[in-house]
């Protein structure tokens, strides 16, 4: 029996790391994917960098907590949160109704707007239904951008493409008058040699939540009060300029979207 006890004890020590850290020095374990540049990715020297990571650190500082990052595969990230591998997911996770059944979300910490790009020599000067009337607009199908364009630019021809790559090519070789996509995807492409043909025209306004969704939030376990704390911390760093500082490090535009 004694030997059995020893084995059981040894196994318990090997398997478990029992921590009863609470209250004073709060440690929050944050799960992220580590393969989604420029938001969160591991660099070739093994560091975690990106917008999500900087925001997470700023939020933890605001909440007076210590943050530890854990990388997890995207497919297993919600199960890992539920199993307690970490306490929050900060990994550019879009707030959706389907996910809300499994986890709680903080308020959004960013919501990249949809934008319209046109060839550099285009005569279109503003984003509106009238200015784009009669033009052909390329959008990737089954995206929020497509749903929006179909509803909004009713006087234009909306041409659906399977993915962004295809309409980018058609915009570059002149088959399209304009294209609509997420600002991060669009501006990344505009910065490449292929995207040199074209320029950002602007954001269509307003961008309704019913179509575009609320944006990316921080996921926590159901009923965890951390969600509210994160929401408050996001508001605080928006107010004290910390958010803008991080935003400007990565993007030329405000990724927070509408207030």
């Amino acid at each position, binding site marked *: 029996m004694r030997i059995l006890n020893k084995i059981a004890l040894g196994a318990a020590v090997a398997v478990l*790391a029992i921590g009863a850290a609470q209250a004073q020095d709060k440690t929050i374990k944050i799960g992220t994917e580590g393969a989604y540049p420029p938001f969160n990715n591991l660099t070739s020297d093994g560091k975690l960098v990106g917008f999500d990571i900087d925001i997470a650190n700023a939020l933890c500082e605001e909440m007076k907590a210590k943050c530890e990052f854990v990388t997890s*595969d995207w497919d297993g990230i919600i199960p890992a949160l539920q199993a307690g591998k970490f306490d929050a997911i900060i990994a550019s996770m879009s707030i959706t109704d389907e996910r809300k059944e499994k986890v709680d979300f903080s308020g959004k910490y960013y919501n990249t707007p949809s934008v319209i790009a046109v060839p550099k020599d285009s005569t279109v000067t503003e984003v509106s239904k009238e200015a784009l009337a009669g033009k052909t607009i390329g959008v990737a199908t089954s995206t929020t951008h497509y749903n929006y364009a179909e509803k909004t630019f009713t006087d234009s021809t909306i041409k659906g493409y399977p993915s962004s790559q295809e309409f980018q090519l058609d915009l570059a070789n002149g088959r399209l008058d304009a294209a609509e996509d997420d600002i991060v995807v669009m501006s990344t492409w505009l910065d490449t040699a292929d995207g040199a043909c074209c320029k950002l025209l602007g954001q269509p306004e307003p961008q309704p939540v019913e179509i575009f969704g609320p944006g990316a939030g921080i996921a926590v376990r159901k009923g965890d009060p951390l969600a509210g704390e994160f929401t408050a911390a996001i508001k605080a760093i928006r107010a004290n300029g910390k958010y803008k500082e991080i935003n400007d490090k990565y993007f030329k535009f405000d990724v927070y979207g509408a207030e």
Partner: protein
Amino acid sequence: MQSYWTLLSWGPEGWLDDIAHGVFITVSLALCTLPFGMALGFLIALAKQSQEPLLRTAGNIYTTIFRGMPELLTLFLIFFGVQLGLQALVQYFIPGATVNVNSFLAGMVALGFVFSSYASEVFLSAFRAIPRGQYEGGYSIGLPYGKTMRLVILPQLIRIALPGLSNLWLILLKDTALVSAIGLNDILRQAYTASRVTKQSFLFFGVACLIYLILAIISSYGIGRIEKLVGKQEGAR
């Protein structure tokens, strides 16, 4: 755009050191699982051919479960399910405590369970290939059961089971790729991260392919050596 050689260099600029670390994880996981899985598989084979019907049934249920379930599901059950179970148990005694099942250990246990259920069948068929006369010969010269097993049966058993076991080893080596799903940075996950960050999917998945191939070639060479070794023993006797 960085050149391929920079991307594949060793050091802070390139990804080779990260992928090498992935190779280390993959190989060490497979090597740690092997003895555990083999020993467990052997014991289950013994149980399945024992006189005790209860043991036989238990052995058969075990193989049915772990051969029947997808490996990924086994892995998730152990990594997430066991964690949830332990958490509930520990929090019953110490409220607020957190439990963490180590992902390497979870991978090892899950792959070991799967490996052992297949290995038990290999051992079982090897046992059946050894004629009863071999046991009787051992007993007739006064060897007890344990010694008969170790000196007479095992050497023959290994020789017969080796081709089947080497198959299982190669399967195990590739199955380790599943642990990338529970956050272990094995070859596949490192290649995936590198490809997402650098947008060079073909390059990095190609490299991962090559590494698995090289590992398989090294394994076949090693297995060939072991086969020769076992064969020699036979000849010398």
